[in-house]
């Protein structure tokens, strides 16, 4: 199978602390890959390396066989790697609709147009509305993003990410900090995207039960190292995974 994203011996150290240590993975195209691991396992750091927020101390990242280790976040987004953030990261004093519209505008490559009114591009507005409908935020379109509840901001994040129409979606704990009632809605959205089978989705998740049903492949990180990789069923049976993550001392974090 085709690997769309590949890392070779990817490591990053902050001072003496090695947050990600020699991770080599292949992420298969158009599949759903989950990354799990206890707190501090380096999941988000690994994402930051993939999306370009951080530069690795050593190792390389390939996107469709092309070395992208040195590329900036902007260029990686343009190539087709979009990500959402664990800590909500939206434009607080712009409206929800405007947040999404900016993402649509970037995707449509309208970057330096200074003379036309922004409403001139009606298709952007419409597409933004469609995306807001998809994530169940259409009734909040004219609110400022800062006034949204936490779960709604997460949904907004996903709408913005979808607007970019990137081939790879990196989702960093999309349900983090959400109330229990909101989680199913997000999972529905993710399932809907997965159902279209035209994107590669990589998801970080804490809640094992949520991802097991959806994932094609699971990567387990522990203390910055990749300790196991395989189908969800294999992972449940894997002893190393069980002792590191599923069983014993980390049990309480699974809830």
């Amino acid at each position, binding site marked *: 199978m085709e690997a769309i994203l590949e890392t070779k011996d990817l490591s990053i150290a902050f001072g003496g602390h090695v947050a990600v240590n020699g991770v080599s993975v292949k992420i298969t195209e158009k599949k759903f890959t989950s990354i799990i691991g206890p707190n501090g396992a380096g999941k988000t750091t690994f994402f930051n390396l993939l999306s370009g927020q951080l530069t690795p101390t050593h190792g390389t990242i390939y996107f469709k066989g092309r070395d992208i280790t040195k590329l900036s976040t902007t260029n990686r987004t343009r190539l087709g790697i979009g990500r959402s953030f664990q800590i909500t990261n939206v*434009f607080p004093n712009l409206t929800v609709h405007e947040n999404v519209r900016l993402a649509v505008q970037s995707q449509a490559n309208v970057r330096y147009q200074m003379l036309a009114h922004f409403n001139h591009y009606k298709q952007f507005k419409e597409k933004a509305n469609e995306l807001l409908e998809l994530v169940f935020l259409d009734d909040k379109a004219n609110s400022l993003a800062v006034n949204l509840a936490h779960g709604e901001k997460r949904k907004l994040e996903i709408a913005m990410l979808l607007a970019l129409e990137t081939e790879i979606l990196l989702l960093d704990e999309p349900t983090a900090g959400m109330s229990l009632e909101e989680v199913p809605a997000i999972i529905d959205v993710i399932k809907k995207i997965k159902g279209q089978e035209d994107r590669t989705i990589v998801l970080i998740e804490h809640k094992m039960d949520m991802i097991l049903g959806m994932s094609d492949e699971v990567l387990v990180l522990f203390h910055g190292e990749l300790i196991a990789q395989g189908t969800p069923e294999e992972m449940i049976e894997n002893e190393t995974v069980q002792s590191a993550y599923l069983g014993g001392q980390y049990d309480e974090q699974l809830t």
Partner: protein
Amino acid sequence: MNLAKVEKSTWIYLAISLLLVIVPFIVTGRSMQFIIIQFFIFAIFAMSYDILLGYTGIISFGHVMFFGIGAYSTAIVMNRFDSTILSFILAIIIAIILAAIVSLIVGMLTLRLKSHFYAMLTLALAGLFLVGAEKWRSLTGGNDGFTFSLPEILRDSQSLYMLCLLSLVLIFFGLRRLTKSPFGRVLMAIRENEKRTESLGYKIVHYKVIASVVAGVVASFAGVLYSISLRFVNTSVFATDMTIDVLLMTIIGGVGTLIGPIIGAGLVEFAHHWLSSLADVHWIFERWIILYGIVYILVVIFFPLGIVGTIQKKFFNRQNYQKKKQQNPRRKLDEGRKEDEDELYRNG
């Protein structure tokens, strides 16, 4: 924002502009006309500053350098060449080109820096221009400056008034369109969250450089008008005080709006005039800058959005609340409040 609304505000602005056209026929006093002219000039300067501060979120303490470049280019050209309209146009072209080049270079060199480093560096660069203007005596006349003559038509207070008003109106509508363009929207996104804008696939340094070139060119044009309104130039056009003044105008009027800096400029200019004339009453009015300091502090604490920002917020709160009540009368108050500041920045 629907089209009808845009047109309404445009008509209001146009009506105000037309009212201002009549003003010089009513207010014939030369000194009063001069104050209004100064108000127009500083309104242009403050708007250009707000493109940086209010729209892109760039804090520059050296914006005065572009103003100074405009003022000196005009003065030097008018001094060296005949005082004709042609050389005045040449002066404008030189001022704009110089400001564009300087802002482009400064922008490319410095805009990669984080906010406060950028602020410090711009302060230093403006200082450099100030020292340059002081030392290059053969060109600038040093600290004392020099006077120059103007063609007949520009010496007339009435026509100067019209020129400044026309420039203000054109620049206002130009910048308004710019801030409402897709480009302007990205600037606002940068102000809100640089990192996020980057991960949406925008190259933020390009945007910042373009914003600073636009702001630089407009500021330079304000400098051109400033020097012809005085028919004199000296190193004060490079002084940091001037940047602080426009900062004050922008903040009092309302950051992130275009009409705000205009109102702020008006307030500061007229307050300056009236406070100074109160000097006979009490010595403190001669030191009006002390009063400004107090006003400045109070505004930042109590009205961080400035006059226009505060009014907009109040106005849209009410409007939205009413809209909401009509849509859903049972909606609770606290839910309504959540969506308070709707469209606050979209209607600037």
